[in-house]
C-alpha cells in the first residue's frame, strides 16, 4: 500500500522511536554513511598522525587528549580507528563486490545452462566450502604473503560459493518461468536472457544478501588478522588494531574493544539495511 501524507497529525515521536518503527533502514544507512564519511574525512578529523609513535605514551588509557587511549607504540587509537576505517571498509566493499560479481556470473550461467557446466560448478563449490575459511586464509598468507590484495582475495573467496549457490538456485527457479520461454521464443541470445532478463529478477535478493555479506566481510578481517593475514605495518585496519590489542588485552583492553565496537556499529548498520531492503521487497510485510 502506498501511503500519501496522512491526514491525521501523527504525534511527534523520539528519533529512536521513529527509527525503530519504520526507519530501521534509514538508521542503517545513516550509520554506514557516517562510517564512510569518517573514513573519507580521516585525514582532516583524526586528531593525530595514526603512525606517530611516542614512547612516553605507551598504552595510556583513554583521557581527554587521547579519547580512546593509545597503543603499544603510543599511537592514538582514535586516529588509527579513523584511518583504519578506510582500509577495513574498502576491503569489505571490494571483497564483497568481487564475491558478488564472480559468484553471480558463475551461478547464473551454471543455473541457466545446467548439465555438465553446472555439475562442475557445484563440485568446485563443494571443494571451496570444504576448506574452512581460516585454513584457507592461512594457506593464502603462506603462498602469497599478507597484503591488502590477498586479504581481499581471502574474504572474497568465501563469498563466491555463497553467491554461486544463491544465484544458481534463483536462476534455476527463474528458468522454469514463462517469460524465459517467451524470451527464447523471441530468439534472444542466452547472454541477453541471462543478464538482461534473469539477473534483474534476482537482483533484490542479491542486494539483500550482499549487504549482510559485507558485514561479515568487515568482521572477518579481524579474524584473519589473528592468523597473520593483514595489511603490512604501519597501515592500520580495524582488524589489525584488534589483533595488536590482543597482545595487551589484560593491560590495555581499550585497544581491542574500541575497534570491535566500530565493527559492531557497522555490522548493525548493514544488518538494518539488509533487513530494511528485505522488508521493502517482501510483499507480506506490513507497509
Amino acid at each position, binding site marked *: 500500500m502506498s501511503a500519501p501524507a496522512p491526514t491525521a497529525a501523527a504525534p511527534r515521536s523520539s528519533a529512536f522511536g521513529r527509527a525503530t518503527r519504520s526507519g530501521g533502514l534509514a538508521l542503517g544507512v545513516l550509520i554506514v554513511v557516517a562510517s564512510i564519511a569518517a573514513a573519507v574525512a580521516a585525514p582532516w578529523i583524526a586528531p593525530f598522525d595514526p*603512525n606517530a*609513535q611516542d*614512547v612516553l605514551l*605507551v*598504552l595510556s588509557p583513554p583521557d581527554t587528549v587521547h579519547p580512546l587511549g593509545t597503543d*603499544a*607504540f603510543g599511537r592514538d587509537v582514535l586516529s588509527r580507528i579513523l584511518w583504519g576505517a578506510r582500509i577495513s571498509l574498502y576491503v569489505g566493499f571490494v571483497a564483497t563486490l568481487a564475491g558478488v560479481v564472480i559468484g553471480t556470473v558463475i551461478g547464473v550461467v551454471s543455473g541457466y545452462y545446467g548439465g555438465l557446466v553446472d555439475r562442475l560448478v557445484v563440485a568446485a563449490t563443494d571443494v571451496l566450502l570444504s576448506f574452512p575459511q581460516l585454513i584457507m586464509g*592461512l594457506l593464502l*598468507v*603462506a603462498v602469497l*604473503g*599478507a*597484503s591488502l590484495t590477498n586479504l581481499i582475495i581471502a574474504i572474497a573467496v568465501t563469498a563466491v560459493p555463497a553467491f554461486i549457490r544463491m544465484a544458481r538456485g534463483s536462476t534455476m527457479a527463474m528458468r522454469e518461468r514463462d517469460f524465459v520461454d517467451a524470451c527464447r521464443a523471441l530468439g534472444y541470445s542466452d547472454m541477453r536472457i541471462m543478464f538482461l532478463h534473469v539477473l534483474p529478477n534476482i537482483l533484490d535478493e542479491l542486494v539483500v544478501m550482499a549487504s549482510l555479506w559485507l558485514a561479515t566481510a568487515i568482521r572477518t578481517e579481524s579474524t584473519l588478522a589473528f592468523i*597473520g*593475514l*593483514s595489511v*603490512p*605495518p*604501519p597501515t592500520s585496519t580495524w582488524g589489525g588494531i584488534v*589483533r*595488536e590489542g*590482543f*597482545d*595487551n*588485552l*589484560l*593491560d590495555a583492553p581499550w585497544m581491542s574493544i574500541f575497534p570491535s565496537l566500530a565493527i559492531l556499529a557497522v555490522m548493525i548498520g548493514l544488518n538494518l539495511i539488509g533487513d530494511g531492503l528485505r522488508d521493502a521487497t517482501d510483499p507480506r510485510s506490513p507497509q
Partner: protein
Amino acid sequence: MKRHIIAATAAAFLMGVALPASAESVLTVGMAAADIGQLDPHRATTTQDKPVVSWMFNGLVRFKPGSSSLEELEPDLAESWDKSADGLTWTFKLRKGVKFHGDWGEMTADDVVYSLKRAADSKTSSFASDYAAVAAIEAVDPSTVKIVLKQPIPALLGIVANYHGGNIVSKKAAEAIGPDFKTKPVGTGPFALVEYKSNESLTFVANKAYFRGAPKIDKIVYRFIPADASRDLAFTSGELDVVYGRQDQRWVERFKKEPNVVVEVVQPSELSLFHLNRAMKPLDDLRVRQAIAYAVDSKQMVAFKGAATALPPVSVIPTGYLGTDEKAKLYPFDPAKAKALLAEAGYPNGVAIKVLQTSLPTMLNSMQILQAQLKTVGIDLQMEVVDHQSWHAQIRKDLSGANYYSAARFPVADVYLKQFFHSSATVLKPTAVTNFSHCDVADKEIDEASVAVDPVKQKELWYIAQKKIIEDVCAVPLFEQLQVWARHTNVDYGYQFKGAIHLGPVITEATTKK
C-alpha cells in the same frame, strides 16, 4: 604407538581419579608455544624445547642450576676430568651406578661415546658443527671416556655440558626405539617423559632412581599455551605454578604486583640484530648501512620494550658471552649524520628498502619501532609480511633486503660470530647457517680465534672481529631482551634462579612445591 597412547591415557585417567591431588606434588608449567619443537636433545633448539631437555638429561658436566655462565660448570655424569698439556686430550671419569629412565639400564662409557658421536653427526644432530674439532671419542673402560681433539677449541667443557649436543642419551634406547626416539627420549635426568599430547602438553614423572636423589616433585605437566593472555590468566587463576613471561615491562610490573608471585628476569639475553644485505641494493653501499646505524635509537627501543626486560646492545654479540667485547664501539644515535650519509650516497630524498618480515606479532612489533625510527631520516622500510616458515625459507634464499633476527646462542663469541658473520655461513651456500648480510670482513679473525690456545690472544681476535663487523655494518644491533619467568611463591626451585642457559628454570631433585 596406539597402544602407548591408550596406556598413557588410561594411566592419566587412573592417576586423576585414584589419587587425590594432595597426595602427589604436581608442578604445572606454562609455555608460550603451540607445541614442542623437538624432544630429541640433539635436535632441540627452540625456546620451548630447551627447558624440558634439561629436566630429562645430563651431560658430563652441567651448568650450575640457575646459572648461564660457562665459568660455573660443575661435575654431572663425570666425576672428574683431566686434560693433556696441549689441551687436545681430555679424559672423563664417569659416575657409577647412574640409571637411565625406565628399564634402559645403567649409564656407561658406551652411552657417552654413542651420544657424543651422535651429536657430532649432522644426520642425527643439529649441533654437529660444534664437534668439528673432535678427532676421536673413545671408551677407555666402562667408566672412562677419552676425547681427542684435532685442535684446541674455546670451551670443550661447553660441548660436553648438559646443553645441546652434550646431553647423554641411552644408546640401547636410541637404537631400539629408532625414529620414535624423538617422541620417547630416554635420559638420566630427574624427570622422565611419560606422555606427549600434540599441541597440548608433555607430562613428566619423577625419576625415583635419580643419582642425586629422588625428586621432591612427583610430576611435571608442561603445557603449551601460545596465547599470552590466556597463559597469564591460567597463571593468575592458579592453574599454572610456573609461567613463561612476556619480555615486556608491563607484564613484569603487573605480575610483580600480584600477591604470592615471584617474577624473575634472567640471563641469557637474546640479541635482536638488523642484518643488512650487503649483496643487494641499496645496502651494498656502506654509507647507506652507516646511515641506518646512525638512525637507530636503541635507547628508545629499550624504552618501548621496558628497562626491566630489555637492555641496550653492547656489540653484535649478546652481553656476557665469552668474548663479547664492549670496547668495539657501536654507532651513536645521530639522525643528522644519517641523513647526510644518505645524501652522500645519492639518496637525498630518502631510500626504500624492501624487507621480508614474519607475521609473528612480537617480531612484527619490534620492526614497527624500527620502521618508525628509520622513517625520520627518510628510509622507508617496506615490509612484505609472510608467515613464519615462509619467512625462514625466503630469508635463506637471500630474498630480503635486510633482516630482523633475534637469537641467543651457546655463550661463546665463536658460535655467534660463525653462524651470523662468517662467510661460510652466508645464505645460499651449502654450509649456510644464518649469515644474511653476506658478511665476510672478519673471517680471518673468527677462524684464528676458534683455534687460539691463548685466551688473551683469543679475546683480542674476537674484539677485532666485532670491531670490523660493526664498522662494516653487517648488522645493526637493536636491543637485548632477557628471559622472564614467574612462579607462585609456593614453588621453590631449590637454587637462586639468575640465569637460564636452557631458557627456562631447571626443575631438579631439589625443586619443591608446598
